[in-house]
């Protein structure tokens, strides 16, 4: 027994301070050791304890005390090895002997700064409440006055545009003999425009994702396009993509991202002469909803041979992308130049658009882009977006909800008459509660042309364990227990890329059906209901007023 005078061993934590407490059942445990082996943070360890056993044999009580040493599974109380609640132990346990239990009274953030290191993690904002998107409902249901469409029978055109769209008066059209023709001699730049599926896969880099995960998504995207007829596009995130894919016919399904570290772009530029297809678009990342004002960091242990070769860097070095583009000092000329440079690289055949994090200043960026004829859109990533690595404070406390940002930007474009010229791409928290199609539809009706989703897909296609209760969220450590965000072959071998592809197809097929189920009763099928805000309502008056939609109760 410890002496009473120093019970806390100089700030030793009790398990009550931890966000998850392991519930282990001695009676069920077979001591197979799988839980301790699988735990990604070594929060559970095998241990021994001395047990005092009182037994009695014979016809009269003859208590006999024996002491024996027995093996147990024990949760450690090291803050750096806190149980993340991932529940891999529960998953591998053959006998239901162990599970983590959420501890609502934890004081985790009081202590997770040992050594002065601010808490960093992956995942998403830890906010288990309903997002604004999940508080919106579709209330204008057509019935007798304007017959509803039949989602199962009528044709639907669930497509949108990515790229700068010329206003009708600027189109190079000439009327000849009762017919319009495109005037090839007109000195008018017709920007490239892609017709795509309205839900796209948001930026997740090859380095952040494991080869199995990225390959699974890429295969799924190709299948969706070529077998299912759904033109889904996928953004690469920073760091390029495998050279073989760059030179393949599949490049047209991918949006290449350039971010502040410019990683991967040596290889991309070198591959340009061999590209048989143009990419779907170029995304210039200026910000990310999950961590506004924070840069990217790919930890050295993730920079293995493949990643190093794609990014054009040595192996095993930390790859830090600064929070801002170091060479850019103003949107007025520098961003415009970057858009032009990227456009020029592909002969102005590829849409180029910036991505920013949701912010109160989004309208200022928007207005600048609205005046730039080469800007192909604006992607806004709201606070509920996910990330591979960031400071906890950035993820939890920084950012702007996407619903209001998109609404304000759309109405700003309406006031300028440019609502169809600069597509808005909305991201951040889409599918947070699993309502992918409903969230996407709501954003479209608030004014988005395209909806981008990432985190939900990790969960739905690969079983990502993370949630808004800070479960798992180990993406930054390279020890993703699902093999999604790791470069460790031992871990990513757990993931079957074919299964990821199959699940991706499942997800989009189901979302396509659900979108039709939402749009059909509202009588919209020939085009997306972009800005059709009269179909939306909120049960919260303040939200309804802020978004300019109906309040219902």
């Amino acid at each position, binding site marked *: 027994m410890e002496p009473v005078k120093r019970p806390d061993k100089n700030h030793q934590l009790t398990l009550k301070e931890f966000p998850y407490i392991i519930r282990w059942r001695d009676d069920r445990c077979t001591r197979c050791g799988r839980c301790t082996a699988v735990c990604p943070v070594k929060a559970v360890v095998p241990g021994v304890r001395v047990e005092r056993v009182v037994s009695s044999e014979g016809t009269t009580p003859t208590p006999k005390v024996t002491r024996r040493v027995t093996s147990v599974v024990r949760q450690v109380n090291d803050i750096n090895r806190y149980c993340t609640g991932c529940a891999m132990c529960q998953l591998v346990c053959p006998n239901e002997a162990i599970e983590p239990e959420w501890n609502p009274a934890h004081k985790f953030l009081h202590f997770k700064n040992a050594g002065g290191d601010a808490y960093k993690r992956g995942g998403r904002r830890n906010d288990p409440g309903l997002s604004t998107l999940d508080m919106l409902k579709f209330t204008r249901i057509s019935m007798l006055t304007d*017959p509803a469409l039949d989602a199962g029978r009528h044709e639907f055109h669930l497509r949108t545009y990515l790229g700068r769209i010329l206003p009708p008066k600027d189109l190079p059209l000439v009327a000849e003999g009762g017919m319009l023709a495109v005037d090839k001699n007109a000195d008018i730049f017709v920007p490239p425009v892609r017709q795509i599926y309205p839900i796209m896969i948001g930026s997740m880099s090859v380095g952040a994702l494991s080869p199995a995960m990225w390959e699974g998504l890429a295969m799924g995207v190709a299948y969706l396009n070529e077998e299912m007829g759904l033109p889904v596009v996928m953004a690469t995130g920073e760091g390029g993509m495998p050279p073989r894919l760059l030179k393949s016919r599949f490049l047209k399904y991918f949006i290449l991202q350039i971010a502040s570290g410019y990683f991967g772009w040596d290889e991309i530029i070198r591959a340009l002469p061999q590209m048989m297809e143009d990419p779907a678009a170029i995304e210039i990342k200026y910000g990310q909803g999950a961590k506004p004002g924070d840069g990217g960091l790919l930890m050295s242990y993730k920079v293995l041979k493949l990643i190093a070769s794609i990014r054009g860097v040595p192996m095993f070095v930390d790859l830090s992308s600064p929070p801002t583009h170091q060479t850019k000092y103003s949107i007025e000329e520098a961003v415009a130049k970057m858009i032009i440079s990227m456009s020029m690289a592909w002969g102005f055949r590829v849409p180029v658009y910036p991505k920013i994090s949701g912010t109160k200043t989004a309208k200022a960026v928007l207005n600048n882009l609205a005046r730039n004829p080469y800007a192909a859109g604006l992607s806004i990533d709201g606070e509920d977006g996910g990330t591979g690595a960031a400071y906890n404070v950035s993820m939890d406390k920084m950012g702007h909800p996407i619903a209001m940002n998109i609404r304000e930007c759309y109405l700003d474009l309406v006031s300028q008459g440019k*609502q169809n010229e600069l597509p808005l791409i909305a991201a951040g928290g889409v599918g947070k509660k699993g309502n992918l199609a409903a969230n996407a539809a709501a954003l479209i009706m608030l004014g988005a042309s395209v909806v981008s989703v990432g985190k939900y897909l990790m969960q739905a296609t690969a079983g990502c364990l993370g949630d808004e209760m800070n479960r798992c969220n180990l993406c930054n450590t390279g020890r993703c227990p699902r093999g999604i965000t790791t470069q460790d072959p031992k871990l990513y071998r757990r993931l079957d890329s074919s299964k990821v592809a199959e699940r991706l197809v499942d997800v989009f097929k189901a979302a396509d059906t659900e979108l039709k189920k939402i749009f059909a009763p509202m009588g919209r099928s020939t085009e997306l209901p972009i800005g059709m805000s009269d179909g939306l309502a909120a049960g919260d008056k303040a939200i309804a007023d802020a978004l300019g939609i109906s309040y219902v109760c």
Partner: protein
Amino acid sequence: MCRLAAITASQYFSPMENIHALETMKEGHDGSGMGLMLKDLGGFAETLKDYPVLSGICSNAGLKALDEFMARQGFREIHMWNPETRPVTGITKRDCYFAKFYDYPTAHKESPWENKEALLLRTRLALRAMGEADESIVVFSFYPDVLTLKEVGDPLALGEFFGLENGKDGLKARIILAQGRQNTNYAINLYACHPFFIQGFGSMTNGENTAFVPIRQYLMSRGVPGYIGYQSDSEVFTHILHYTVRELGFPVTYYKDVITPLKNEETGARPDAEALRLIRQSLRMLVIDGPNCIIGFLPDGTCFAVQDSKKLRPGAVGGVPGKYAIMSEECGLDRAVPDRDKSLDIFPMKYDLVTVPAGAMEVKVWNQLKGQTKTIS
């Protein structure tokens, strides 16, 4: 669902023909309004074709204000037509229904036609704004050779109320649109009554417009005077027509391509596929889902009918050379042109744009999928 009755003929006829056709479709209108829009006026107005006609309804005070305003603008009234109203049960008479024929202000008499058109539109909008708050002035159209009459009530009763059955001085025209309104979405308001008019384009519809809000926002942000109002979600169809044909200068068949565009994979047979792709991108905010049949006329007197992309509402065209009717129901055709060859009746389908050129000697069916026109006469 509202009922539509349009007739175009080589001879002048009475709007009662349209009203009787509406009467056969009675189950489809609830007395929440009837609109009549006459183009190519006959009778007393045959000699006044060059003079703009201001059609509307005023209170006595509103009429005084209107006259003062028009005088200040320099418009000289040369003729005023008032219906000889008679008491009819269920119809509340307003102070003054009128169609005033004006001569242009001196300063504009020699102006180019475009300037005169702009002046007429500006003037109508100013009058509308003057009387909107207290409903003392309601103006429907201000344009040469076009007269509009609207009121709340059953079409047949309104015909009697306005005395349209009456005699030699009655209203006549070669093109008349009539709509019996079934109020669905919005409060009864005279400005919500079809047909709608702007600068020579008139149209009415028997349906709804599910994408009304973004379409209205798009039109209102075009910077085109006159794209206002929208007490009815169907008013945008008239303005889309005006925007497509007049503002953008597209041939009228592209109205169909704007409101119900082909999918990319459907444009293969169209030689203008590349133009269609650009139009679809650029004007996607104007795509409608209906459900509706839109019937209207163009400044040159061509009448047309077009369906939503799924043909969710009825529409029928039939007649004889010299008189064609475009109706929302076939029984309306039977009433308007009973002695026609019914086997030649046309029921516009989802790819069709049916037009009847001025003079009503033939019908043309333009197929959007093929980009070809078939003439029936």
